[in-house]
């Protein structure tokens, strides 16, 4: 069997494309969690982003308004979460779950009128270079700006957390909100901003799905990607670079199992569909086994409410 090198390049490209929403949502959630807040509403924020992006695109015809509108929708819905957990001190887990259920419900309601409407073509960058180099060109060129942003994001996130002062403050708040507060850091404000940032990234991830990856609105189209994004954050031990690896493995297995089904490999379809979930978690567990590093990188105050008494 002769394998066409360009075909391999195309498979890798499709793997990368399918991992974009995971990278975006995970990197957003990672910042939220690093500040000590556990937001289980990722799936809900993504689906809200997906419907908002698609609806705005249909209504206004402007892709720019649609993309930023989707991010704004993510910010708005995460503001509800932030207000509940940070101002009213509700439980993070319950509030996050409620947010997901709310998001799925309201997106289905808004989305009724958008089912079956075709999407718009999203412009790609460097299209002229697409055939310049065999194998490499389809991987590197001819993608949307969101695609390039997603692959830069883990590195930006890592730099932000390790090298900038605001990143240091985020980590400090996640490590010990009491100490941070006694040092004069406004813990609630930091956490608010981190939650809103996470919301924006989840909104963008949703918009990518409904506007670029499969340009149409289908009810419940995030299909559990929000939960995978959450799992990626934990299993990556809050390391953005490992999120990139995990998202690629997950995306890769999702694509490969499609191809295996198409070729007609005699393995039950259900098992193939489950495979990406199982393998991603196994791989991340294996590469993150150092318990010392886990303790050092896990935000100590994750999921715990903070309030100042004076």
């Amino acid at each position: 069997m002769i394998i066409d090198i360009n075909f391999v390049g195309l498979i890798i490209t499709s793997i990368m494309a399918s991992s974009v929403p995971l990278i975006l949502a995970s990197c957003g959630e990672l910042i939220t969690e690093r500040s000590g807040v556990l937001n289980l509403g990722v799936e809900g924020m993504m689906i809200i982003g997906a419907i908002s992006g698609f609806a705005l695109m249909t209504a206004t015809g402007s892709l720019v308004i649609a993309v930023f509108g989707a991010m704004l929708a993510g910010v708005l819905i995460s503001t509800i979460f932030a207000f509940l957990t940070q101002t009213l001190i509700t439980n993070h887990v319950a509030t996050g779950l409620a947010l997901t259920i709310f998001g799925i419900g309201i997106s289905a309601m808004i989305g009724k009128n958008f089912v079956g409407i075709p999407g718009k073509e999203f412009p790609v960058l460097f299209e002229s270079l697409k055939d310049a180099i065999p194998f490499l060109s389809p991987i590197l060129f001819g993608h949307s700006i969101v695609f390039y942003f997603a692959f830069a994001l883990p590195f930006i996130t890592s730099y932000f957390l390790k090298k900038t002062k605001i990143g240091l403050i985020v980590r400090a708040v996640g490590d010990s909100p009491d100490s941070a507060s006694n040092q004069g850091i406004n813990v609630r404000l930091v956490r608010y901003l981190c939650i809103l940032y996470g919301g924006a990234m989840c909104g963008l991830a949703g918009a990518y799905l409904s506007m670029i990856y499969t340009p149409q609105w289908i009810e419940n189209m995030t299909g559990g990607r929000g939960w995978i994004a959450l799992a990626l954050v934990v299993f990556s031990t809050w390391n953005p670079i490992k999120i990139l690896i995990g998202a690629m493995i997950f995306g890769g297995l999702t694509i490969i199992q499609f191809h295996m089904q198409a070729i007609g490999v005699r393995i039950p379809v259900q098992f193939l569909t489950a495979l990406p979930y199982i393998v991603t978690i196994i791989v991340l567990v294996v590469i993150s086994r150092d318990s010392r590093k886990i303790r050092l990188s896990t935000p100590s105050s994750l999921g715990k409410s903070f309030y100042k008494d004076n």
Partner: protein
Amino acid sequence: MNTNLKISNVSKIYPGCIANDNISLEFKSGKIYALLGENGAGKSTLVKILSGVIIPDKGEIFLNNKILKLKSPIDAKKKKIGMVFQHFNLFETLSVFENLIIDSDENRENLHEKIQSIMKKYNFSIDLDIPVLNLSAGQKQKVEIIRCLIRNPEVLIMDEPTSVLTEQETSELFSSLRQFSMEGILIIYITHKLKEVMSLCDEVAVMRKGKLVSVSKIVNEKIETLANKMVGQNLKTVRKSISNERSSEKLIKISNLSFSSEDPFETNLVNINFEVNRGECLGIAGISGNGQSELFQILSGEIISDKNSIEFNSNFIGNLNPQERREYLMAFSPEDRLEQAAIPQMKIFENVALNNFKSSNFFNNGLINENKIKEHAKKIISDFNVNTDNIELKSQFLSGGNLQKLIIGRELITSPDLLICFNPTWGLDVGAINYIHKTLIKINDQNKSIILISTDTDELLKLSDKISVIHKGKLSKIMNSDEVTSEKLGILMGGGEID
């Protein structure tokens, strides 16, 4: 520098408690001031007001005759008031340098230089690039002090700084504080340790139940006079009479016990061996974090070890869980009363039933027999002098002393052969400490044994028949308590050797 700090009619009221009742005090630079008082006397509230963490309900603070409005810790820092908290305010997983740069306005290079010059001047040596959790308590405190010094403070407040230090580290701290004081920094030193006040400070203010009781010069005071002012009554301290009549019958034997953990927050234990006879109290001293918590967990069965490493009453029980060990008549009083010993949200009588699942009285066919448990709880409350008559109260609302009495009572009412307790009087006031000490001595008199793991050397010397010291997971040789002094213990606790 000529600093003058004045507190004028400051009050802070919490629901059900007046933490500071109309306090007025004046401090001048060049002297070291002690703020003395028991737990709950209101010292910490007062210094938190001075450092901007708490905003007072009433009253003013003046720095150099100018009114000082502190709305947040940042205001205090900007006004050059530095504070070292009792519970360190450090970020454990961040590096030392990251901890220092986080609230600094300077750039990396300048700050680095400044830290180096401070460390050189005061003879500190700390690796700036390792995470704070790898530092000893003394080093962590130095990081806190450096954090204050970076801002060239005029006032430095130390809140119970020696509670986690060795004697060696304490004397280093004292000489640093004297040096700061000579350089013109006004120092306010909060403590309940009388000896430290006498040796370090120039003037002392005593607080009791939120009120200022007295202000005086140290030269006019003695330990006894200060103690009486602090407690408000004449105290008789208990001391164990060492008798020779105790049996030499062995009760528990630990042999070749080791424990290794991958968790960086835990300490490994290396080849622990000891024996305790009936009617004896073995004290285990040490600075916190040297393996006491791991040793307690292994002795109580929270961590399972090798079956043969623990021999109790001629049974090998190393592989049994706490519930099974209780059936062999062991009892446990863990360090953290609200986290490990009791369940804060549950009622007193429910907590009382927790260590006694097997009692046929308490449960009928899987149903809770509330009346029996309540009766039992009432007995504990009256026998052990717990100051409440409401057994429906959630245990989180008991004071530390009352909760500790309840827990010790719960453990002792089943009349165990061995009680293992870990810092039983930590954070309690003198009255409650006295009661717990008397109770522990009584147990020994009934020919029952105690393993007392404690970071309080005075307590150990008072109660133990034999003492050993744990340092970095290793146990020193076991000494008779009458041949041990607190100085000797201090050397061993700091990792030194004695003959």
